[in-house]
């Protein structure tokens, strides 16, 4: 057992760190620092800077632009991005649609979509949840009926993050409503957001921000070639993707950066014993998460198996830490300084979402109970 990074790994990290320092635009750094809203252009600008460097999709196969880095190098890279306060890479194309296409897509689909995802030409969003189907995703009702060379889609998605920015949406739709088992008869469709019949309506969250939307489909014609994997096999695709989605939710680098900020910000409160204890506990929690994450990665590297129920644990712990961070930040702020406390309180409100989305933390516990513990 050796919990130290090798000299090569450290050299790699330094190289990444230096590159970020030289290439992260100052205005984006500033916006991230002050939790300012990032526009579509802001997000895509950073995406393209990484794409030009060849680093935007390290996990992809090399032929499609992957870096061929080891699991540890990929982890270090992500941690550095988070720690440096880089804008987030929107995962819907890079880390969700692409792995699905790589695993289940046809050559034509890969050629058509992957380069555009890589280069940041298309902005993607995820059309899974529906008003009646959140945790119970497989009960989804949005219909897609085959008519000649098209599917005709009718129904509604909800909570669709960034649908108001998106060029494309990948959707789970029901192609066969007659089957008894709800997991059957679901298909995975790629839909152009410019298609006639799509309406996007904003949903405002309690911090006042517009991140999520309702998306309505009214006789939307989708070419049959946009079906991924076989008709009726969408649930297999969905499950494959959810593992990737949750990989994304630990956000250790980002939390480390937030913690460093919090410690500086709260310096005046360290005389307060209760606060100091909670801060220290949080740091210990984060260390435990980091080591656990590395241990799981190491296991994945050796077994060559895709992430299993382990990621559920990382999701639970990672999101709890992110929430505690924003809560302590709010508590450390001067309650009399509106300009200081208000944005932090709104961020605290916003981060409540993390234990709800990407499979709520209750659902993650169900998964561990069932898959890992056999309960």
């Amino acid at each position: 057992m050796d919990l130290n990074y090798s000299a090569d790994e450290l050299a790699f990290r330094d190289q990444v760190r230096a590159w970020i320092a030289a290439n992260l635009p100052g205005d984006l750094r500033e916006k991230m620092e002050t939790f300012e809203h990032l526009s579509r252009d802001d997000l895509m600008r950073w995406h393209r800077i990484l794409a030009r460097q060849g680093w935007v999709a390290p996990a992809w196969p090399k032929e499609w632009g992957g870096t061929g880095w080891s699991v540890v190098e990929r982890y270090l890279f992500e941690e550095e991005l988070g720690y440096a306060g880089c804008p987030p890479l929107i995962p819907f194309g890079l880390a969700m649609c692409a792995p699905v296409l790589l695993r289940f897509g046809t050559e034509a689909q890969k050629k058509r979509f992957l380069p555009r995802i890589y280069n940041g030409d298309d902005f993607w969003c995820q059309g899974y949840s529906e008003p009646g189907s959140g945790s119970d995703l497989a009960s989804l009702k949005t219909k897609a009926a085959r008519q000649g060379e098209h599917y005709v889609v009718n129904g509604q998605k909800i909570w669709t993050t960034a649908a108001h920015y998106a060029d494309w949406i990948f959707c789970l739709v029901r192609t066969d409503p007659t089957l008894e088992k709800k997991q059957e008869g679901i298909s995975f469709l790629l839909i152009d957001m410019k298609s006639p019949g799509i309406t996007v309506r904003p949903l405002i969250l309690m911090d006042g921000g517009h991140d999520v939307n309702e998306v309505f489909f009214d006789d939307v014609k989708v070419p049959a070639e946009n079906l991924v994997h076989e008709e009726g096999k969408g649930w297999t695709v969905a499950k494959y993707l959810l593992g990737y989605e949750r990989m994304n939710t630990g956000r250790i680098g980002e939390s480390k950066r937030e913690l460093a900020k919090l410690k500086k910000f709260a310096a005046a409160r360290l005389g307060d014993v209760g606060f100091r204890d909670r801060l220290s506990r949080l740091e210990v929690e984060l260390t435990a998460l980091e080591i656990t994450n590395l241990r799981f990665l190491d296991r994945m590297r050796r077994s060559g198996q895709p992430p299993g129920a382990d990621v559920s644990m990382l999701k639970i712990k990672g999101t709890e830490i992110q929430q505690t961070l924003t809560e302590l930040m709010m508590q450390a702020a001067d309650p009399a300084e509106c300009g200081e406390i208000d944005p932090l309180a709104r961020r605290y409100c916003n981060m409540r979402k993390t234990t709800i989305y990407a499979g709520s933390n209750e659902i993650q516990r169900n998964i561990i109970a069932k898959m890992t513990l056999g309960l």
Partner: protein
Amino acid sequence: MNFDYNEEQQLLADSVRRFVQKDYDFERRRKIVASEHGFSPEVWSVFADMGLLGLPFSTEHGGFGGGAVDLLSVMEAFGEALVVEPYLATVGLGARFVAKAGSAQQKKAILPAVAEGKLKMAFAHAEAGARYDLAQVRAQAKKAADGWRIEGEKRAVIGAPMADKLVVSARSGAGIALFLVDREAAGVSLRPYRTLDEMRAADVVLAGVRAEALEGGLELIEEATDFATALVCAEAVGAIQYANDATLEYLKTRKQFGVPIGAFQALQHRMVDMVISGEQARSMACLACSKADAASASERKRAISAAKIKIADACRHVSQESVQLHGGMGMTEELKVSHTFRRLTMIAQQFGDADHHLERFASL
């Protein structure tokens, strides 16, 4: 030992509850919050008609001689409805200083007007960097030929934008003293804003503002703040009650996996813990209100701090769980639950968070 309201208190509790249920539903509140001044003059005059605005004043000043226990049911109903009118600022704080420390003339000029709904007040005390330390006051008061002049900056004064008169703390030769200032007086300038929980507050700059003195200083500020703390504890109980009721209802009606989500034992236990938090909060609000007017300062302080610690914990617990158990819906502006979340988040910190009151409790 008796936890029941007497007949008058019960009548009051019933009528306030009826009013908010009928005339202060969430849609009405939404309109009030969005209106220019962020409060409703009509609602305010109903409060006056119901006798709520004079409740704690003596009968000679148009009041009913009520104490914190009499205000408990009012605040609870306000918490449930998320009332944004500056009741706490006016009746719980501003006018209370006048009632406790005003001259006979000041009382006569102010309290009946407050009771009739003609005068609103706010307490301008907090300053930047003071956190919850009531003794940190830098504003200065200087004696002038015709009264006093105040120089200083107050922050986060809830209710200041709609107040007619401000009670201001400032240092005079003798230490911290209290003053009355007209909000419209020359030298008063406001930077108004809307708080996270949709009330109106302002930073207040006082530049050589003319003021009249009140009696009393830091001790009275502590006592009045404790009184107001007891009131927000009662308000929290109402807001927690709403959050729990709404969540329970949601668990019974929201279906996933073919059953109401309340069928999942994992959620049943969470709901039970929320209800336990609510019950304990209610007990502590009773304690706080019954001791808020206590003769012994140390008895009062211990009870108020103990209550605020439990209430802050309950606010945090119930608000977070109510959003979580509502799933995505709980995150939306559309649902009252997310507004209750915000009010509970603010109450947890108002007049001192749990850390602050733990320190105070331990030091007593």
